Every structure is written in structure tokens, then in C-alpha cells.
């Protein structure tokens, strides 16, 4: 009966369909990654791009461009996209708030603020030095936003969280500005980074942040079942014997780890963590095991696409990927806000 077949929910066929979908997304990601190696102010043939990976000829100008500029950029994009998307999905699960995202809740700006301070006061220049500051800043900002928003009647509603996040972002942004105005040297170092960019970063940056991102991603996947239970609601989860406070704390730490690492590598890139989980949910339904797995693939897919778009739109100049994601992601925020469920929360 076709009526029965349209009820997917569980079962081997549904799992098979989701698995196939994940493989398709992975294939798409490979294509986009290749495009990211090819497209830019210098167009490079696919042959050259593939040769640069597997059959590197240091005498070829094109292959050198791929190897030294576009490959690091693409790999950093892969890591940052996954980390931000999973961080966003986990925030949405634990705050039970469809608008949660590292940039909207001010976690990104916390990390960015701490990094600018580290550069300004301690003269740190390498991500492996300031990544710890990023964790500290992200942690403090998320704790501040969450505790302010959850005080008072009604708890941490989407509107209160978004307002607290926006104001913390504005405050930290103006302090960052003050520091930048005091010191042209710092300004020059972080000007492009602050807009959110994966360009011009050496590959070492990626190796540096990889352990933190990997911890966050694996930890997130391990917590997926608990997040599913949490999604039933605070009371139900407790009744089922779950330590909701402990789960919140652990996932907040993982989110801070992933966000801090992503901001250290690429600056504050917004809205990837908001949009990707919502897009993914359309296909996977509410099961966080699948949502997180899809986020790991679709996050970089989106980030790299945005980065490629940034290279194409203002050719031969480049648009920072953080600006592209904000321009595409902000309408997403508006669309979610228009759903009745959110506004009435």
C-alpha cells in the first residue's frame, strides 16, 4: 500500500535512503572541493588541479597556485564548515531553540574579541598561540549570553537569546574597534580575518586546529542519542533518567571547542551553524544521529560554495566568505522568524 510506504520514520529502507543521500552529498562535496581548487582570479584546468594533488610538478605555475594557496584554503574550509555546522546543530538541540547559531548567540564574537586582545596585548601572531584565548572568549561569551537570557520569566526564549547575543556582539565589536584604532599594526593583521575569511592562511593553521575540531565532531556524534532524548523536552528527558545539566555542559564545551577552533582558523563566520542544520533537517527528520552526520558533510559544502561565490562575484577582487554567508544566511534567520512556532515561543 502506498499509504504505508509514505510513512518513513524508521526501518531499513529509510536508513538505506538516508545513507544514499549522505553518499550523494559527499560526492557533491568532492565536486565542490575540486571547483574550489579550480576557480579564482586565475582559472585552472581540472587536470592541473588533480595533478597538483597526486602528481605534483613544482615547475608548473598553476600547480603551485593550487598547492600553496587553494589547497590550504579548501582544506581549512572543509574543517571550518563541519565544525560550525555541527556546533550550530548542537546549540539548537541543547537550547531547544531554532535560532541558535555561534554567530547569533555571540560565541563567535567572544572568540574574535579574545583573539584580537591576544594579538594586541601579547603580540601573538600564530593561531596555535591564540587558539586558547579563542576558547576562553567563546566560553565566557556563551555563558554570559545563556545566563542572561535564561534569567527571568519564560526562561531562555529565542527572542531573549537573540537579543542578548546581538547586544554582546555589538559591545565586543565596538571594543574590537577601539583596539584596532589604537594600533594600525593589529588592524592590518586582522582586517580581512575579522570579516571571516579562509583565504591566505597557511595549511599549518589547519593541522593546528584539527585536533580540537575532531574532538568536537566525534564528541558530537557520540552525544547524538542523548541529544535525541533531550529533544523530547527537558522534563521527559529527566524522567527518562538523563542528567540534562551534565549533557548541556558537555555539549557547550564541545561547541566552544569547535567554535573557538573555527574562529582561530577563519575568523567569525556567521550563519553556517544556523542554516545548515535547518536545511539538513528537511531531509533527515528530527534524528540527531543523522542530522549531525549530514551537517559534517553539508556544512563544508555550503561554506566552500559561499567561498567560491565570493571569488566569482567581485572578480578579480574577492569577497570574504563571512560576508557571503551573512548575506545568504540572514534571510534564513528572517524565514525562521516568520514561522509562527518561533515568534510565539
Amino acid at each position, binding site marked *: 500500500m502506498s499509504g504505508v510506504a509514505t510513512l518513513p520514520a524508521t526501518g531499513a529502507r529509510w536508513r538505506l535512503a538516508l545513507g544514499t543521500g549522505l553518499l550523494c552529498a559527499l560526492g557533491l562535496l568532492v565536486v565542490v572541493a575540486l571547483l574550489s581548487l579550480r576557480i579564482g582570479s586565475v582559472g585552472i584546468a581540472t587536470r592541473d588541479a588533480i595533478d597538483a594533488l597526486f602528481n605534483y610538478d613544482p615547475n608548473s605555475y598553476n600547480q603551485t597556485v593550487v598547492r600553496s594557496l587553494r589547497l590550504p584554503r579548501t582544506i581549512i574550509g572543509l574543517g571550518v564548515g563541519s565544525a560550525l555546522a555541527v556546533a550550530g546543530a548542537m546549540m539548537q538541540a541543547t537550547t531547544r531553540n531554532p535560532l541558535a547559531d555561534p554567530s547569533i548567540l555571540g560565541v563567535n564574537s567572544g572568540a574574535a574579541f579574545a583573539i584580537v586582545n591576544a594579538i594586541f596585548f601579547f603580540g601573538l601572531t600564530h593561531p596555535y598561540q591564540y587558539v586558547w584565548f579563542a576558547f576562553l572568549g567563546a566560553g565566557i561569551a556563551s555563558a554570559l549570553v545563556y545566563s542572561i537570557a535564561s534569567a527571568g520569566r519564560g526562561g531562555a526564549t529565542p527572542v531573549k537569546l537573540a537579543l542578548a547575543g546581538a547586544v554582546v556582539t555589538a559591545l565586543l565589536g565596538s571594543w574590537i574597534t577601539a583596539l584596532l584604532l589604537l594600533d594600525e599594526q593589529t588592524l592590518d593583521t586582522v582586517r580581512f580575518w575579522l570579516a571571516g575569511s579562509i583565504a591566505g592562511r597557511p595549511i599549518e593553521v589547519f593541522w593546528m586546529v584539527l585536533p580540537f575540531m575532531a574532538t568536537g565532531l566525534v564528541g558530537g556524534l557520540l552525544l547524538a542519542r542523548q541529544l535525541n532524548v533531550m529533544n523530547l523536552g527537558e522534563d521527559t528527558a529527566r524522567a527518562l533518567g538523563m542528567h540534562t545539566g551534565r549533557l548541556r555542559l558537555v555539549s557547550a564545551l564541545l561547541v566552544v571547542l569547535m567554535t573557538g577552533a573555527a574562529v582561530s582558523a577563519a575568523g567569525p563566520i556567521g550563519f553556517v551553524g544556523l542554516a545548515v542544520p535547518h536545511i539538513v533537517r528537511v531531509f533527515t527528520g528530527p534524528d540527531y544521529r543523522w542530522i549531525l552526520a549530514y551537517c559534517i558533510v553539508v556544512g563544508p559544502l555550503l561554506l566552500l560554495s559561499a567561498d567560491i561565490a565570493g571569488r566569482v562575484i567581485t572578480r578579480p577582487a574577492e569577497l570574504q566568505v563571512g560576508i557571503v554567508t551573512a548575506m545568504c544566511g540572514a534571510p534564513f534567520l528572517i524565514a525562521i522568524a*516568520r514561522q509562527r512556532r518561533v515568534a510565539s515561543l
Partner: protein
Amino acid sequence: MIRPALSALRGGPVLLDLRLGSFASFRINVRVLAICLLLLVVVIALAAWAATLGSFIVPLDEVVRATFSESTRQFEFVVVQLRLPRILSAILVGAALASSGAIFQGLVRNPLVSPDIIGIQAGATVVAVFMIVNGYTDRYIPLGAFGGAVTAATAIYLLAWKGGMSGNRLVLVGIGIDALLAAGTRYLIVKFPVQQAQAAIAWSTGTVYGTGWFDVQVIAVALGELLPLAIVLTWQLRVLQFGDDIAYVLGMRVEPTRLALILVGCALAAVAVAVAGPVGFIALMVPHVARIIGGPMTGGTLLLTALLGAVLLLGADIVALHVLPVALPVGVVTAGVGAPYFLFLLYRANVRM
């Protein structure tokens, strides 16, 4: 004819009813009026003090003489050409932002909403930055900023409308629009050559540095028209606060009135942005403080709000310029004061939102 109203006897505010013939009457809250006068004195005193401050110290009597009659050429140059435009700009920008905030907070009936949070200032900013980058003359920037503000407000209103208006939806849509427009501004600023980047970044935080007599003229003329209009419209604003249905029953043409209020609020925010960039948190914080001091929104309270905004922004600029070890844009100081205040309000918010 003036007669004190009876409410004072019942422990309420001391009110004066003022009748001009048979066609107009005002009710004046004596307390609000007194506070307004006090604030006016404070503004003038602060302005006079600010004019004496700086690396070149001008005695107070020379400030007065340079402003109103004649002084030495040196004093006149420093006071009239350098310091007064900045001081007056700060005063007028503060007044414009605060009254704009009061109008929007009244319209949305939500004290946590203001043009700097929901993207109206961002709309003015992105157009102004675009015009600065592309070398338009200063003359057109206020107009362009106004266009940006109105466009942003219209977009927010239309996108938040869904078979009715909800304050929460408006806030969320506004934050989205703000993020979108801020990304546009960032894009324009990144495109600046490095030499201009610092100026652009300072401007995008809000600063009255480098304002001249032309800026003062622009904002004084705009404020001279808009503030009286806003004060007249506060009566309508109060009726609107009962809700659309009741306002309609009371015989008000709801949508045209709302449109007029939005336009006035946008224009006030836009001239402020055109002169000083997007100074944050004045529009958010001042109306709230003014309501605590002056009570519910009336024409008098709006005047009080404007004066309080002037005092606060001038004070913040004095702190930014003279108290801190290095001169900073005034927007940094207003954010440093305003953001914690706002977070405190949110922390204590007993409205369900």
C-alpha cells in the same frame, strides 16, 4: 489661562492646564518641565566645559567671549572652528537618536527595541558608507541615509507582517536585517584602501570627530523640523499604544499615523547617522531612562528624552576624548555603558518574550 489640575491634590503629578483661547490647550507636567530645564542647564554647562578642554586649554570666559563676541584670533579659531562644531554635533546627534529610539520603542510597545538593534541605523549606515566610498558630496549623504533607513524599516515591517504584527517577530526579523546590512557595510569597508580603513572603521562605530559647521547646520535644521513634529505626534503614539483596534474605534486613521511616526523616526535616525555614523545604544538606553524619570510618553517626556540623549552623548564624547588615555570614537563609550545596561534590563525582563 493657567490653572493647576486637581491630580496634585491626590498625590499625582503636578499638572498645569494651559489654554490658548478656545482652540488649543496643553497640559504641562510641572515635574517633567522642571527636569527639562535642569537638563538644559546641564547641557549648556557641559558644552561650555567641553569647549575649555583639550591640549590647548581655553579659559571659560574666553570661551564665552569667543562664542558670543570677540576674542583673540587663536582662541576664536580653537573654540569656534574646532571645538564648537564637535560639541554641537554631539548634542544634536544625541537628541536625534534618543527621540528616534523613543518613537520606535513606543510604536513596537517593547522597551528592548530600538533602531540600532533592529537594523534601521544599519540601513542608513550602509547607504552612507556606499556614498562615502564612491565620493558623493556630503550634501547628499543625509538624504541617502534617510532612504536607507526608510527602506530598511519598510523591509522589516513587511517581512515581520504575517496576518498581523508581533513584537517578537519584528525583533527577530530586525536582527536578521541588521546582520544582512552589517555584512554589506563590512564588505564596503574591506574594499577601502588601508590608509582610509581606520577612518572608515572609526566612522562605522560612531564618532563626532571631524564634524564641521556644515554637519551642525544639517542636523540642526533637520532636528528643528522633526522634533516638534515628533512632539505633536506623541499624542497619536499614545493612542496607538492602546492597540490598533482601540485606536481605530477612537477615530484614528491607524496606518497613516503609523507611517508618519515611522518616517519621522527614520529621519531622526538617518540625520544622526549621516553626521556621526551609527552611534549605538543611545536610542536604546535613553528612552528607557527617560521613562523612569518622566513617566509615560508625552510631548514633555519626548523633550526630556531628547535632552537626556544630548547630555549623555556629549558626556560620552568628553569621556572618549579627554578621560580615556587615547581619543576613541564616542560609539565605543556608549556601547560600553549601554550594552551592560541593556543586558541588565534583559536579565530582569519580566515581560514574557
